[in-house]
């Protein structure tokens, strides 16, 4: 063992001792300090699609039905009972004695107001997939509501327990919500500085019998730091207690710190490339040719990408969905092996023997994106890398400005293929394939009550998506958390950290 290494350990020990002091103080203050990476455009969960926003929502608002984070079983939330009257009508009995953060009582009016607001297309909820299956809701009596669907929608309960949060009857839209969010959740928002900081306080009157339980830590402070290195500096210096999306390369080094812990958990998120098959970024661009897209699938060494960069439990995937999602079946979809020679041959067949220039836009990790760039370069495709902040990039993606988009999607943790395949392949702003056939199959799959029919049609859609090579499915995600040893932390497979569950050791 080298002397310098020994000195290094001593240095680390000193640093750890120094850093440990503020954490103790934190326990006394009963305030958990979390750092998020992304700026949420609006905290209203119907008007942002960022994971940070989802986490925000899970703390401030509640669902009618709550899904158990471990077993995925449904538990009574704001609704104590629910019953399908027929394929398109759902009756719910609401819980009594629930209060909002402002003290007002919760009732049928709140539910009906929220659902009707988000279901109206003119209110432009950001991800229509989450809300456009609801036709309307009506009050049956003060504690009973009835939801009407446009068509049968089997994953309705799943959606009610994840992206559909219930607001109060005073809700007037995202603008007001972003200033004074009022919910029934275990934490109430004490202060909000958009793009900078959120402060939460335990809501003592969070309803009895909530599957979430009452918050154990009194206060949560969330700061937004858009730079990974700065985030880590905050943690190492003892000015933050919990980080997530920590760079996998840093995890072993953080783990070696005496006062810090890391947790790596596979989540429902998948990483992928969206290829502009529909020519939205430029009519007749090379990506509109099927062979070019297939060449790209063959060009990327996904195994090496997953093993060396994503690391941990991450896996290569061959379909545009997470393997456990209902309908996510890649058995008959073509699998593209890593084969640069074949990629080059396909490019030549498509009329690009010398490759072409294009753009690769991404937000997550410069290194990951440059690895993809290098693989493309090896077969002659010259992709200019453009790293953008996530909110900006999603806007440009939805406007149709990204030739190759490297993204990832957590499906709002909905364990059903519709939450991803039907978001990206049904002709909306997020669809770069614009394939009518795929949309038809997805329509059948989304709106059939017969599980076999659903599975068969998702499978057909996935087969076609992969044959046409609209997407390059890359990997399942591993989310890395780093936290102070003081914190009793656990990760959930739905990728939603639950601050109300955590406590100090």
């Amino acid at each position, binding site marked *: 063992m*080298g002397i*310098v*290494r020994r000195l290094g350990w001593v240095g680390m020990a000193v640093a750890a001792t120094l850093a440990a002091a503020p954490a103790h103080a934190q326990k006394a203050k009963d305030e958990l300090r979390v750092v998020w990476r992304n700026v949420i455009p609006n905290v209203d969960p119907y008007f942002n699609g960022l994971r940070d926003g989802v986490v925000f929502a899970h703390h401030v608002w509640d669902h009618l039905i709550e899904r158990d984070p471990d077993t995925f079983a449904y538990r009574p939330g704001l609704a104590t009972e629910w019953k399908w009257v027929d394929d398109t009508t759902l009756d719910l009995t609401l819980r009594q004695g629930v209060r909002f953060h402002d003290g007002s009582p919760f009732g049928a009016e709140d539910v009906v107001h929220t659902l009707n607001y988000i279901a109206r297309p003119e209110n432009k909820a950001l991800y229509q997939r989450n809300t456009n299956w609801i036709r309307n809701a009506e009050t049956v009596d003060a504690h009973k509501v009835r939801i009407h669907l446009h068509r049968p929608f089997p994953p309705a309960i799943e959606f009610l327990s994840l992206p559909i949060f219930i607001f109060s009857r005073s809700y007037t839209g995202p603008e007001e919500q972003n200033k004074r969010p009022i919910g029934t959740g275990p934490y109430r928002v004490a202060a909000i500085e958009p793009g900078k900081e959120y402060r939460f306080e335990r809501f003592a009157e969070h309803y009895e019998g909530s599957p979430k339980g009452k918050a154990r830590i009194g206060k949560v402070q969330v700061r937004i730091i858009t730079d990974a*290195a700065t985030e880590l500096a905050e943690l*190492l210096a003892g000015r933050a207690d919990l980080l997530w999306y920590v760079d996998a390369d*840093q995890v072993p080094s953080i783990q070696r710190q005496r006062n810090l812990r890391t947790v790596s958990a596979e989540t429902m998120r998948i990483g992928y490339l969206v290829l502009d098959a529909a020519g939205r970024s430029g009519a007749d661009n090379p990506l509109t040719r099927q062979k070019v897209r297939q060449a790209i699938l063959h060009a990327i*060494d996904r195994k*090496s990408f997953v093993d060396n960069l994503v690391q941990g439990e991450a896996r290569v995937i061959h379909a545009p969905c997470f393997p456990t999602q209902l309908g996510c079946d890649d058995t008959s979809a073509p699998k593209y092996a890593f084969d640069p020679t074949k990629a080059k041959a396909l490019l030549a067949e498509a009329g690009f023997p010398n490759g072409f220039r294009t753009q690769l836009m991404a937000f997550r990790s410069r290194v990951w994106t*440059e*690895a993809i760039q290098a693989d493309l370069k090896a077969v002659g495709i010259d992709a200019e890398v453009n790293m953008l902040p996530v909110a900006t990039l999603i806007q440009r993606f939805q406007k149709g400005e990204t030739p190759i988009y490297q993204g990832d999607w957590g499906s709002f943790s909905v364990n059903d293929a519709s939450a991803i395949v039907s978001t990206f392949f049904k002709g909306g702003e997020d669809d770069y394939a614009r394939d009518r056939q795929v949309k038809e199959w997805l329509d059948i799959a989304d709106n059939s009550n017969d599980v076999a029919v659903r599975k068969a049609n998702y499978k057909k859609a996935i087969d076609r998506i992969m044959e046409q090579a609209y997407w390059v499915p890359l990997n399942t995600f591993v989310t890395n958390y780093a936290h102070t040893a003081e914190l009793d932390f656990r990760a959930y497979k739905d990728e939603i950290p639950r601050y109300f569950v955590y406590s100090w050791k």
Partner: protein
Amino acid sequence: MTAAQPTGAAPAPVAPGPRTLAWRRARGHLGLMTGAGVLALILAMALLAPLVAPHDPYTGSLARRRIPPIWHAWLYDSPKAGWTYPLGTDRLGRDYLSRLIYGSRISLVIGVSAMLISGFIGSTLGLLAGYFGGKVDMIVNFFVTTRLSLPVVLVALAVVALTGSSLLVLVLVLGLLLWDRFAVVMRAATQQARSLDYVAAAEAIGCSTPYLLLREVLPNVLNPLIVVATIEMANAILLEAALSFLGLGVRPPQPSWGLMLAEAKEEIFFNTWMIALPGIALFVLVLSINLLGDGARDVTAPENRN
């Protein structure tokens, strides 16, 4: 302006000429010699990059990523470090040494070309303002004031964000933004030179204005420009690194030192060498250029030394 005597003044036969004197001073000037030596070394490295670099700077293997540099084998018993990659590999498995060597090309190309462009613009404006004075001077002063009120980094960021970045755009942007010092220094020097007797004499015998400007004034005001040129070259190199670091300069996978810093940013706490190496490279290059400029000033115009 005694260093470069007017050509008419022949040196006394016994005393050494100004050039010989300058050379003597140069050889005794530690800073100048160090700067010139290091710069020459970097220049040679840049020119001979394909011969010197042990690996391809663009292709790496993910399986060989983040190999630490050789001293980790000596100091920390790192089993991965070795002579195959003496300075280690980056986060994509590309050889760090080769990328640093190729990176010097980008820095030098941008530094020299931006300096030439800004030098041309600045000295032309300065020469005209200093020689003609009056309205011309007023107009040039207006341009200089306007330019000085533009924050360089901000303008460069905006332009690059609008036009997209490439080496050419970067060189042009930096060249068009860094000419103010040239203009100011050139103007002051020209104003001095203009009133000297040999200019008046040339004017009296009927030399044309272009002749006066280019043959009488210009050669005698070049000295202070050398220092400005080195400062601006160093400035351009640092700006390129800054822009690349911000993702608005040289595009990956080009091995720009600024980009290498950006790529290694997340490693700053546990793999300090990754960020230190390109940082040191930038530091050494800029220092050597500044030493060279400083030395050149001392040698050619020793009376300005302080």
